[in-house]
């Protein structure tokens, strides 16, 4: 017993400390690639068919969950083993996806029906279904896992859902065609990237939840203009970072003053965007140029551009902490 523990420790010591990784859904290439974020190289690639697009990373980084809207399934990826270990069939085209912090459930938006599905990961099947607004795209969870927010794109609204009861608590109208949705680390504010109105809506989550008699009124706290056809929002260093698909830029604004700070060129059709654990970098998948960009969140400059496979999207949470 003791011997085996010692030899295991020695084995671990022989392996260099792993760097954080990015899991990139390559929709046109039909794959998910793994980027080592210290060497900034693709170190693994696994085939995933059905046109993979959305991704949710488990908080402990052990599993990543990838939606294939054309194939109508979710692939469960063992991140360390670099392979798909399970496929969960969906009744509709899944796009946005979020993983609850305990790793027990997935919340998956079905694009056409439109429904939000609660998937029990132990059972590998849908255990609850909730009707939400038209063409739900992004799905986000509050840090405590208690509240789910969906961007109901074609209804120009977000749905705010109580995770425990899986019921909708509130609906808030935002800009035109919200796509990506992000909740801040304090669980205080929701940010939507509105594709057709070229802006970001900011919603106060607590006031939206406390208004029981007048849902959808009064909790939209601000609208921030950004570049053309915004897709998703990341938050870092008290700044908002927004991928502008047509603009080919990341728009940066101050979260307090809401003043625009900069637009950073990042290749063509930037889509998925997420902040590194230490908030020093924001990673962006540029769909047309087949690159991932790293942006320094202090200098607001491109720190790296990394070639990846065809059609990277990584819509959701795609960064894996390994330390």
């Amino acid at each position: 017993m003791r011997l085996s523990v010692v030899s295991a420790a020695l084995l671990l010591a022989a392996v260099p400390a792993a760097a954080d990784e990015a899991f990139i859904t390559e929709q046109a290439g039909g794959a998910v690639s793994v980027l080592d974020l210290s060497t900034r190289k693709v170190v693994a690639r696994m085939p995933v068919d059905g046109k993979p697009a959305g991704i949710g990373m488990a908080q402990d980084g052990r599993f990543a969950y990838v939606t294939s809207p054309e194939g109508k399934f979710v692939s469960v990826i063992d991140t360390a083993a670099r392979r798909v270990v399970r496929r969960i069939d969906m009744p509709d085209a899944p796009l946005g996806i979020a993983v609850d912090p305990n790793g027990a459930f997935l919340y998956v938006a079905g694009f056409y029906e439109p429904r939000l599905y609660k998937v029990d990961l132990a059972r590998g099947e849908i255990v609850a279904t909730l009707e939400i607004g038209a063409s739900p795209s992004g799905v986000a969870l509050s840090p405590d896992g208690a509240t789910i927010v969906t961007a109901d794109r074609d209804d120009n609204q977000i749905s705010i859902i109580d995770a425990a009861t899986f019921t909708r608590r509130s609906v808030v109208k935002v800009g035109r065609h919200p796509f990506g949705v992000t909740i801040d680390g304090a669980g205080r504010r929701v940010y939507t990237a509105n594709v057709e109105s070229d802006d970001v809506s900011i919603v106060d989550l607590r006031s939206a939840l406390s208004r029981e008699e007048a849902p959808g009124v009064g909790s939209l706290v601000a609208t921030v203009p950004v570049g053309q056809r915004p897709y998703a929002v990341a938050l870092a260093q008290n700044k908002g970072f927004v991928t502008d698909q047509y603009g080919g830029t990341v728009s940066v604004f101050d979260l307090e003053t809401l003043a625009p700070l900069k637009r950073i060129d990042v290749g063509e059709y930037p889509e998925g965007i997420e902040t590194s654990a230490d908030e020093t970098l924001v990673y962006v998948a540029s769909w047309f140029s087949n690159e991932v960009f790293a942006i320094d969140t202090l200098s607001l400059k491109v720190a790296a551009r990394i070639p990846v496979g065809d059609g990277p999207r990584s819509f959701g949470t795609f960064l894996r902490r390994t330390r």
Partner: protein
Amino acid sequence: MAARIGTCLCFGLGLVWLALAGTASAHGPVRQKLTEKIEINAPPAKVWEVIGSFQDMSWHPGIAKTTGEGGNTPDVAKRQLTLASGGTIDESLYKYDAAEMSYSYRIDKVDVKVLPVTNYSSTIVVLPADGGKSTVEWKGAFYRGYPNNDPPPDLNEEAAIKAVTTVYKAGLEALKKKVEAK
């Protein structure tokens, strides 16, 4: 239909009549992209002279007429293309860079019977190539014509890609001929 395909390499090619009007905003979940390129035996400036005006698409054999306003000013300029095969396409310019010889535009309105795509955007750019020649790249990003689940074959992804590829190839080949004949 077959005769038209044979005689006119243009917009509207290969489409079966379908009484389905997609709205401009709804679309399927999987965006498509493609790039067509051609090398032209002329310096980039000569090529840009022909394609550099957003208000003049007469270099494309599928276009019978271009009308519009706003010149080459991004977010202002609009044009309507009238196709040789009938039908119109309304487009607006969202990027224009004369120094880089590149512009980007999107389709605001088109019937899927004319071009089976939704949420189409495109960039055309002239790049310098070896020996004083040019390469023209025409890039498109778009969704299939059918915005809902389970598209019919003529409005699926394959149909969209085929139609856009045909438009780009026909345009680039005609452009090459026109510039090299000068």
